[in-house]
């Protein structure tokens, strides 16, 4: 050991290159903070401008009446589309997640990659695909075809979200179940899935929030309808919010614009509500899982 690198008796102010290291650290920290602030600001500006432009159109009648006064039938139709899509995507998504976590050996990694690609593929591609597959074949737009397209978009969100909560279920549960001579599938069904229920609900809500606003597939698959009254027939097209917004914004009238903004605000509000609800649910189920 040679000379000590510093004098232990010196006052505790920065020595050596600490002043420079502190400056670099401050720059990095403020860069990261700025990035986060920009993201929040963008959301804030979008919500604010949608609200400002749409608030004049908002009223109870607007939510309940049919066209041209309101978007009631479109709200009901979007609810129907998303419900059918959820009924299709949730069981499949949960099964995919169960496969990935509980059974998937060597195939798990490529399937996970597939899901991530699915999460990223453009929704217009899904639209064209379902259009060619179903609408062309049946010569008819339909709610069921639109729901299938939305389900394809929801699937990866539900599968990946469920996968994450299934991983939170302690392995001790799996060992305990196995040591009791019960088959793996029964254990998954009666122990693992019930303890992950909150997280599965969360993943589903996030999927719903994503699907509710998807527009591109609907323009191809579910856009020719009469928005003046509620129609629920899944074999025919049903009015829906995204296409309503698209159509209204194409109208060359200020009133139409205001209604488009209003419908946009309603959709945005519902999606944000779903997202917040999903977080709350997830936080609650996380707390329950780690006693």
């Amino acid at each position, binding site marked *: 050991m040679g000379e000590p690198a510093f004098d232990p008796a010196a006052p505790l102010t920065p020595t050596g290159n600490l002043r420079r290291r502190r400056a670099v650290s401050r720059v990095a920290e403020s860069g990261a903070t700025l990035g986060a602030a920009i993201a929040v600001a963008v959301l804030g500006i979008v919500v604010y401008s949608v609200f400002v432009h749409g608030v004049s159109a908002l009223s109870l009648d607007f939510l309940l009446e049919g066209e041209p006064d309101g978007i009631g039938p479109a709200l009901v139709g979007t609810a129907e589309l998303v419900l059918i899509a959820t009924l299709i995507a949730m069981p499949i998504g949960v099964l995919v997640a169960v496969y990935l976590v509980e059974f998937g050996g060597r195939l798990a990694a490529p399937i996970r990659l597939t899901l991530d690609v699915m999460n990223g593929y453009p929704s217009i591609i899904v639209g064209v695909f379902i259009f060619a597959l179903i609408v062309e074949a049946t010569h008819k737009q339909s709610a069921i075809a639109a729901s299938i397209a939305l389900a394809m978009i929801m699937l990866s969100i539900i599968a990946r979200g469920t996968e994450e909560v299934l991983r939170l279920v302690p392995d001790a549960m799996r060992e305990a179940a*196995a040591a*009791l001579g019960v088959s793996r599938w029964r254990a998954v069904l009666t122990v693992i899935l019930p303890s992950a229920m909150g997280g599965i609900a969360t993943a589903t809500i996030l999927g719903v929030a994503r699907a509710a606003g998807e527009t591109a597939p609907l323009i191809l698959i579910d856009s020719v309808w009469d928005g003046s009254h509620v129609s629920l027939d899944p074999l025919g097209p049903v009015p829906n919010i995204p296409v309503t917004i698209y159509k209204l914004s194409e109208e060359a009238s200020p009133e139409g614009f205001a209604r488009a903004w209003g419908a946009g605000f309603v959709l945005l509000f519902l999606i944000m509500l779903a997202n917040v609800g999903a977080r709350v649910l997830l936080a609650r189920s996380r707390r329950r899982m780690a006693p």
Partner: protein
Amino acid sequence: MRGASALPSRVRIQSGPLTEAGPSGGRRELPVESVFDVHGVSVFYGTKRALDGVNMRIPRSRVTALIGPSGCGKSTFIRSLNRMNDSVSSFRLEGQVLYHGHDLYAGNVDEVEVRRRIGMVFQKPNPFPKSIYDNVAWAPRNLGLRRGLDERVEGALRGAALWDEVKDRLKDGALGLSGGQQQRLCIARAIAIEPDVLLLDEPASALDPIATASIEELIHTLKGRFTIVIVTHNMQQAARVADETAFFGLGASDGGEPVGTLIEHAETATIFGNPADPRTRDYVSGRFG
């Protein structure tokens, strides 16, 4: 295989009728029916040998304790007895584990059926996040033993000496129980399907002394009904609960790398009073480990 050839002759004597020096010094014949006959079992995780050349006979309706320092393959060995290691992808077993004469690792053996007959309780209590009742009723329900479920649950909880403490709150969550109660609940859950064998992998090491005492007492009441194999770090515990004790230690394998193996297996009184192998003597007298 120096590890195997170094095994004391005592282990081989076990394949004949067992004799035991009673407290009075007299000798009496013991039941010879064995539940497990382990022949030359070595366990590998990938290329790493975790257990080397174990020959051992585990008798019926007795308590057999596995003792020894950490890393000598006790847990690996006990988990090989009901194929709990199957879920480890790199796990490989050489040799033969006979259970009532059937090779546990034969191709036609279903590991779920194995575990239905050979139950296991783990080091850390792991009740399901369900009610006390549902924890005990879970396995019977899934195995189709629905008739008389209430009586079965009560019987299992009584068997695990937990009934009096929980009979008024069977619908409460199991996670609200104390650690010792949770572990007895896990034992109740295991005996609810009336297995043939109970494997206990350090069942008391996460518990306080009072809870440990109640688990040990429970083991005494359960032997006779079940064949029990217990892994323990605690020599006094082995001396208190076990009829027979097997000492696992490090032996040298072919490569010269020390690897866990069975050093000596005999009546508990012999292992603690008059062990044949100097390594056993050193361990039980506290000179190492």
